[in-house]
């Protein structure tokens, strides 16, 4: 005989995975990312490569050479001998502008209709350097001396950290990732807390629960629902990993993907593992809490209201994780890092910024595990006692009474 909880979990998973709302949730962040990358690419391509401005230099082959060498100016360069030729070409829009030397100064003439621009500040810098080199040569100052004259003062900046295990770029990568995960986690959590509460409230309010409990048991229903919804959440995360990996392979040479790859390549394994474990435990914890609360609900319309405090709870950790950077060693944040329901966002953020270490993370995980186990155990009792009771009392009054009875 198959385990009843497995049937319940499978059914929950099967029905939801076929629903449109699930795929909307899964795909909407991806579409958002794809959209913003597309937008970025569009603007990047509009001002680069094929549309590079063409700049003509009149009678200055040496300057042309210097400009080509410096590469700082992102333009196509053309060497043209006479001003008349250059004026004609500008009229014909073969070139976007020209540079001509008058006495000791330079004049830049550009077409008013041209869509592309020539960076004037860069041009000015290069021209200054070019002029300085020419003047130095005239004054018989060697290249080395000139360099010594013009060398800027170097200001070295060094931050001293308690833990120097992770490198600087590592830190940046980890903290970017932890904030990203924090946001994504919050959205995912809200969705699955809703789902499990709706599932249970629907079965309770439509009185299907009695039929289900007659065939199985409260434990099978409770654990089956949690496992089923948990699997949905894990599926969503795996889909993102797969999509992300696919994007890396397909658009491997794109500049945005490249920069994303450099970020990820700096993520340390221990950080990733701690974050994933804590997030999974937190999802389990929140789902269990939502299931317990939903067992007290009488009908569907109360679900939204009932799970609201759960979402507030999730929000605390979410908001605190943003404050960390400002107040890293705040006592409250320090303590909150060990509090289940909050720790899943605080520990990864603090770990990323080197404000805490692995031992603390492991303690937080251990506390999470204990809380999940306790919740699953005592949650079942509350669930079993209430899932067939239809009380007129408010949900939180019921909860208080239950706790007092214990």
């Amino acid at each position, binding site marked *: 005989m198959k385990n009843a909880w497995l049937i319940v979990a499978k059914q929950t998973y099967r029905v939801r995975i076929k629903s449109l709302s699930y795929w909307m949730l899964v795909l909407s962040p991806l579409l958002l990312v794809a959209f913003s990358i597309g937008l970025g690419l569009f603007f990047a391509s509009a001002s680069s490569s094929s549309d590079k401005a063409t700049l003509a230099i009149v009678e200055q082959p040496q300057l042309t050479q210097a400009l080509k060498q410096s590469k700082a100016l992102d333009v196509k360069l053309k060497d043209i001998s006479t001003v008349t030729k250059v004026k004609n070409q500008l009229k014909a829009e073969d070139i976007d502008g020209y540079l001509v030397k008058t006495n000791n100064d330079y004049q830049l003439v550009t077409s008013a209709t041209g869509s592309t621009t020539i960076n004037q500040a860069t041009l000015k810098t290069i021209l200054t350097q070019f002029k300085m080199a020419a003047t130095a040569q005239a004054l018989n100052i060697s290249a080395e001396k000139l360099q010594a004259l013009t060398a800027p003062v170097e200001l070295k900046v060094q931050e001293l950290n308690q833990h120097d295990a992770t490198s600087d770029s590592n830190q940046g990568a980890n903290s970017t990732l932890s904030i990203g995960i924090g946001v994504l986690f919050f959205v995912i959590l809200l969705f699955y807390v809703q789902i499990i509460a709706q599932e249970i409230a629907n079965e309770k309010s439509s*009185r299907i629960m*009695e*039929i289900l409990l007659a065939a199985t048991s409260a434990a099978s229903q409770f654990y089956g629902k949690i496992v089923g919804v948990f699997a949905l959440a894990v599926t969503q995360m795996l889909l993102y990993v797969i999509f992300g990996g696919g994007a890396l392979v397909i658009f491997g040479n794109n500049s945005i993907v490249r920069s994303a790859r450099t970020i990820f390549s700096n993520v340390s394994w221990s950080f990733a593992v701690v974050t994933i474990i804590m997030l999974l435990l937190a999802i389990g914890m929140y789902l269990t809490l939502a299931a317990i609360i939903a067992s007290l609900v009488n009908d569907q319309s109360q679900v939204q209201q009932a799970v609201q405090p759960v979402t507030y709870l999730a929000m605390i950790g979410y908001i605190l994780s943003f404050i960390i950077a400002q107040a890293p060693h705040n006592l409250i944040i320090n303590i909150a890092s060990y509090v289940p329901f909050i720790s899943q966002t605080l520990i990864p953020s603090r770990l990323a910024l080197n404000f805490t270490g692995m031992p603390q993370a492991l303690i937080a995980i251990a506390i999470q595990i204990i809380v999940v186990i306790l919740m699953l155990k005592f949650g079942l009792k509350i669930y079993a006692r209430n899932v067939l009771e239809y009380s007129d009392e408010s949900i939180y009054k019921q909860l208080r009474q239950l706790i007092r009875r214990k």
Partner: protein
Amino acid sequence: MAVELQNLTKQFGPKVAVDNLSLSVNDGEVLGLIGQNGAGKTTTFRMLLDFIKPDHGSILFDGQPITPAIRQKIGFLPEERGLYQKWTIEQQMLYFGELHGMKSAAVKTELKHWLSRLEVVGKPTDKVQTLSKGNAQKVQLIATLIFQPKLLILDEPFTGLDPVNTSLMMREIKLLRDTGARIIFSAHNMASVEELSDHLLMLKNGKTVLSGETKAIRESFGRTRVYLEADISDTDLLAIDGVEAITPSNLGRVLKLRDEATGHTVFERVTTPHNYVPAFMQTPPSLDEIFRTEVAATEVEL
């Protein structure tokens, strides 16, 4: 072998919901549970289904306590019906069937039989919310019976059913009984109890006030009722010693007698050579009457 409830007691706070209840149902037997609202019927069912534990007493299925395997063969129709409104008929059946240990292929073929047998207007792929109330009731019944339960528990099965579905429900219950299943149901409607149950148990505030074979219970009250269609006035009938009351019923009247023997006197008085009598039937009081008198009697007792 049987389902046995022995000395069950369940208390909620100061209120005794079920008080020292004992009953047993053998293979192929139907037990009717009668009582007003709050008499303890639903609590009894909930203990039987292991939703709640009794404070005292035991429940045995073929001599052993409930196990997941036993549970799988229990069909339960709750008083308040419920189906997944947004699922199709087939989806529900597959899920309920799987929970009761059926293979999905078996569920699909069985479902087709049931839908045509109960004349459900709708396809397996129809969503429940599109069905009419009567058809949804039939689907609910199918969900309870499709896996051939060994024990069937029905809480007020006839409440809210139209006459067609009532007789369908009766028919299916009898068919299942004939396969050897045990059936326990509760009802307000005495006619259904009388027609279906071999045994009955009457509850009043958690206490058992009547228990036994339906026929025996009725007979125990004596044949103190006479249904009569005859050309004779009420005054003449009431003049007979032992006739206590007369109430009109259908085409004739029902006479309440002090004892069975009075029936003979009435018979002799009405069957004169020139007086044709289309109907004379001496019976025990109906279950409905017994229900009322018993409930009233214990009310005084309490």
